[in-house]
């Protein structure tokens, strides 16, 4: 089948993202899982670039891969002791099948509904290219309340995490 370059890039990005997230959950070592998760996040950032949201893509890389993955690596390194080696993630009992059925129903259900409504959904109509500066005014004039709530939430989360992780001597 002949793939036009945008289609090829889409397929490659989808493969990277999905395989990355599968590996993140299935890898034996948590650190390899974190690296696979970082690769999956970079895949999603590539999707954002594809969707005409380059600023979001850079934010995704800077915050998710640059901060959250570092936090995860940190925690994994601090939580290393015998407890990790003797715990296996293999599902015992019926959990594996229940999880697979649940996840499969969800995913196939949503994808099926979308595919059935497929012809009614818009395909690539307008090549929209908004300037990056169009995000700023909308944030400040139309959605100022979530912005301020986000600021308060960030400070409280920072204080909360700090107090939780402090070692009481």
């Amino acid at each position, binding site marked *: 089948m002949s793939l036009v370059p945008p289609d090829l890039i889409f397929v490659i990005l989808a493969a990277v993202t999905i395989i990355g997230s599968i590996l993140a959950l299935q890898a034996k070592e948590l*650190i390899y899982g974190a*690296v696979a998760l*970082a690769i999956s996040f970079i895949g999603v950032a590539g999707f954002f670039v594809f969707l005409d949201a*380059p*600023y979001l893509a*850079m*934010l995704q*890389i*800077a915050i998710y*891969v*640059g*901060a959250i*993955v*570092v936090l995860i*690596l*940190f925690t994994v*390194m601090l939580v290393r002791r015998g407890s990790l080696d003797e715990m296996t993630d293999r599902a015992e009992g019926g959990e594996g099948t229940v999880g697979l059925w649940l996840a499969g129903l969800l995913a196939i259900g949503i994808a099926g509904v979308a595919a059935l409504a497929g012809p009614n959904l818009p395909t690539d109509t307008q090549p929209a290219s908004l*300037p*990056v*500066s169009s995000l700023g005014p909308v944030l400040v004039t139309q959605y100022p309340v979530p912005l301020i709530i986000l600021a308060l939430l960030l400070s409280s989360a920072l204080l909360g995490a700090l107090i939780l992780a402090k070692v009481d001597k």
Partner: protein
Amino acid sequence: MVALPTTPADILPFVIAIVTSHAFITIVFFPGFIHLMLITMFLTWYERKILARIQLRIGPLYAGGPGGILQPIADGVKLIFKEVMVPYKADKPLFLGIPLALVFLAALPFAVIPFGQNWVIANLDVGIVFVFAVTSLFPAMILLFAWASNSKYPFLGGLRSLFQQVAYEIPMWIATLSVVMLAGSLNLVDIVNAQAKLWFIIPAFLSCVVFFISIMAELERLPFDLPEAEPELVAGWYTESSGAIFMLLFLGLYMKLYLMSSLVTALFLGGWWGPAFLPQPVWFIIKTIFVATLIIIPRGVYPRIRVDMLIRIGWSRLLIIALVNLFVTIFLLSTGILASWGL
């Protein structure tokens, strides 16, 4: 776009069309791969010469040419032939793969840095955010490499390096915010174009100082040398690297130095603007080497900074100065004082 060759007679014109296209020249020659490698190797020699003169010695002298200019090539050849020692029970894929990733990530932001009006590889509208997104990946790689070395000293050095680099990223971002406000765009080409009449170091002087100090901490240069403190940690997070791995890390570090210096030039020192008797890229490189000299000189002059002073400077002092400059910039822009320079 050129047409793909269909007959064997079409191949030669196709190859010539690709080789002489602007994209190819910018990616491979200037400001792309070859120029990057040459200037990075030049910077290693340059640093050793400057430090030698500060310390009243001569530096590399015998490696051929005048003043040992081929010393980096000699270093490279020596390091390639050295044995790569992977520590006991170290994590091999990470240990061998991360230096490659580091060099890749250090070279990637050069795609958006403009060396001249047309000498930019990718004219991204979110140029400066792209550079910061990529530089925020460095602490993660350093932590992974330090952990993969499976040894105490690298791990401690890696943690220290992580704390330092993460702490000094924030004043860097806020200092850049003033410049972005003055220029009105995140595109690096627009930012340099807006400095045609007035270099941003004048209205945003405090931001320039904050940015300069932050990049010295990001590059782990003296006086922010804690992750590499030789009397304590041997060599910090790259203690266990040797041979080709060390050469890659060394290259990556000097590429980062060149990257940060060219960022200072593009954001504050007017990029390629200069009198017209020299072409634009030459002005850019001259200013960048000047900034690199300013970064290299404190290594021979200042003592190492203490860790509590490091944290205090990073989190409180620099942040406050950068925010002060932000308010000064808002004031200058809103009252139209800078209008005569077109801002």
